[in-house]
């Protein structure tokens, strides 16, 4: 900008961009002033009133433009600031909410893990209790069962006369059943009546009753147990000896055979009127 005098003089053929820049830098508004000055060789001594008015209008317009844009920018700025503040507040609110939800999620995850643990424990104990219930059902006779075992068929002597001893008594049947229990039978049924620990085998009139239902000979006693050891062990028990004696002395018919598969029915549960569980827990 030091060579004031070089204005207008082209600085050679440069690239278009440089030429444009040079033109921009060298041609100012006052080019027109120069032209006007050249045209009216002697400028008017002073501007006329009309000219004054025009200049005033231009200058006032400029001032108004300046003032209005300053005002507008000023007015827009707080608006942008307000929006910015609102957005920041929203972000922090959402962030807080997100943190809270994260905490809740972690809490719930812990709870789920706890519940899963306790569910696993409950499942374990439920399956254990189920196994126990099955065992109890088998032992109490409430559950129908099947398995290998022996079938003892007993019948009165062919020429049995009441009082003569050829008739099977309730005590004989009791001895048979107890002998089978002692020999390791796990479930016993007489003529399809499943026995429990509370089953009564008694005489009522001329017939033996099991659970108060009369039976007619022959008496078929089915016992589930080890078919290899049950018959022999039975004969070693007191009941077995009784029956060997009955067969030898009174002609009572008594036969034992093993079976690969026996099916014993269940029985209605015994109702306990007086016995109560001891709650030790």
């Amino acid at each position, binding site marked *: 900008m030091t060579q004031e005098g070089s204005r207008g003089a082209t600085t050679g053929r440069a690239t278009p961009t440089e030429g444009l820049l040079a033109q921009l830098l060298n041609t100012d508004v006052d080019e027109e002033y120069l032209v006007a000055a050249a045209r009216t060789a002697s400028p008017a001594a002073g501007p006329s009133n009309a000219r004054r008015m025009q200049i005033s209008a231009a200058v006032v317009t400029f001032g108004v*433009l300046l003032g209005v844009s300053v*005002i507008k920018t000023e007015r827009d700025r707080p608006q942008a600031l307000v929006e910015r503040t609102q957005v920041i507040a929203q972000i922090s609110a959402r962030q807080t909410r997100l943190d809270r939800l994260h905490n809740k999620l972690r809490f719930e995850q812990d709870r789920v893990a706890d519940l899963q643990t306790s569910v696993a424990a409950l499942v374990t104990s439920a399956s254990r209790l189920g196994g126990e219930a099955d065992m109890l059902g088998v032992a109490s006779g409430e559950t129908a069962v099947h398995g290998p075992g022996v079938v003892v068929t007993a019948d009165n002597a062919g020429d049995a006369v009441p009082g003569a001893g050829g008739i099977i008594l309730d005590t004989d049947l009791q001895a048979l059943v107890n002998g089978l229990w002692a020999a390791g039978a796990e479930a016993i049924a007489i003529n399809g009546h499943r026995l429990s620990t509370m089953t009564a085998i008694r005489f009522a009139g001329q017939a033996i009753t099991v659970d108060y239902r009369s039976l007619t000979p022959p008496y078929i006693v089915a016992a589930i147990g080890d078919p290899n050891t049950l018959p022999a062990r039975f004969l070693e028990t007191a009941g077995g000896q009784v029956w060997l004696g009955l067969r030898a002395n009174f002609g009572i018919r008594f036969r034992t055979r093993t079976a690969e598969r026996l099916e014993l029915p269940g029985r209605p549960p015994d109702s306990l009127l007086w016995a109560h569980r001891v709650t030790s827990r």
Partner: protein
Amino acid sequence: MIAVIGLLIGIAAGLFLEPTVPEALQPYLPIAVVAALDAVFGAARAHFDGIFDDRVFVISFFSNVLIAALIVYLGDQLGVGGQLSTGVVVVLGIRIFSNVAAIRRHVFHA
């Protein structure tokens, strides 16, 4: 003198009357101001050069404002309003700088 008084009156009017600018004209206001600034500095430089011509000033002022707004309007219609605004501001800015530099030389002789 008359110019300074007019400027002050105009600024005062703009600040205190707060005329509402129509929504459609708002994008052109800053460009118009820059164009007017260019005309004013050009006039100031001409004044210092001793070749100030009031008629040239008035005409160049209003035509500057109008043409600047027109260019931006055209750019808006063509979808390049932002770029054209930037271009106009750059060109006018260069002119303002060189005019101010000339004024500075006259005032400070440096």
